[in-house]
């Protein structure tokens, strides 16, 4: 049970982010919830590469080691973080423009497109 704790944390973060996207009315809170879901996905990728008792995957700096953790998920997570940064920057810019046009941050009021 205690070995699975990182995966439980991943699941809990994901569900909290999903709750924020679905049920919050303030669009900044929705953007923060998207960021929380991104963090949970990045954590999931890093936890995949962990091997019990492994040292850092740098061959020249590891010292005495029996085995290393996997470095590939770390590279995948870096890429995912950069992508998340670009998306968050764009989301925040869109929120600024929405505020300028609609004068409100309530997602129930920003509904001119329907049907």
């Amino acid at each position, binding site marked *: 049970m205690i070995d699975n704790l990182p995966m439980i944390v991943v699941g809990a973060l994901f569900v909290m982010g999903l709750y924020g996207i679905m049920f919050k009315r303030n669009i*900044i809170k929705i953007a923060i919830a998207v960021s929380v879901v991104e963090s949970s996905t990045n954590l999931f990728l890093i936890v995949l590469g962990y091997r019990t008792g492994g040292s850092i995957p*740098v*061959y*020249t700096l590891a010292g005495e080691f029996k085995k290393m953790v996997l470095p590939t998920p770390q590279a995948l997570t*870096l890429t995912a973080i950069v992508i998340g940064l670009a998306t968050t920057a764009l989301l925040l810019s869109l929120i600024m*423009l929405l505020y*300028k046009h609609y004068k409100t941050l309530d997602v129930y*009021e920003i509904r001119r497109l329907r049907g």
Partner: protein
Amino acid sequence: MDMKPMSIVVRTICNIFAWFVVVFGAYVIIHGHLSPGGGFQGGAIVATFVALLLVAHGGKRFMEWLRSDILTVFECVGLIAFICIGFLGLRTTYLYNFLALKGGLFGSPVPLGPNAGVLNSAGTIAFANMAVGIEVVGGLSTIIVFMFLGMRHVIESNKGVKKNDR
């Protein structure tokens, strides 16, 4: 939130530490193939230099310092350098590391076992790190500057705001 600079204490600390931030960021970029870090991380550190100046000295003075196209030049140089590094290896495949283990620029082999790491190794990966670092500096600084300008625009058109956020 407008253009006024912060107090003299904040401005002095900023003047002392701002360039250290740039040097540290350049260190992280250049040692990307030896220690954790690399292009994106180092570039983000250097971009905090822009954010620090903007917050401490205020928007009006910062916009006077900023030359009009310098950030776009950073972005373009970084991106085009990365693509050209890829094309240089085209004799074998695209993005082939033709400099590694050849002995010339960035070409020394890395000795096995624990050691301090050799800066002169890893071939085109080092150049790619530097290109990405320059690009990320330009890109993130552009994001920060434009968001600041956008906020000023939004605040100025702030009439009749409905307080509905929850």
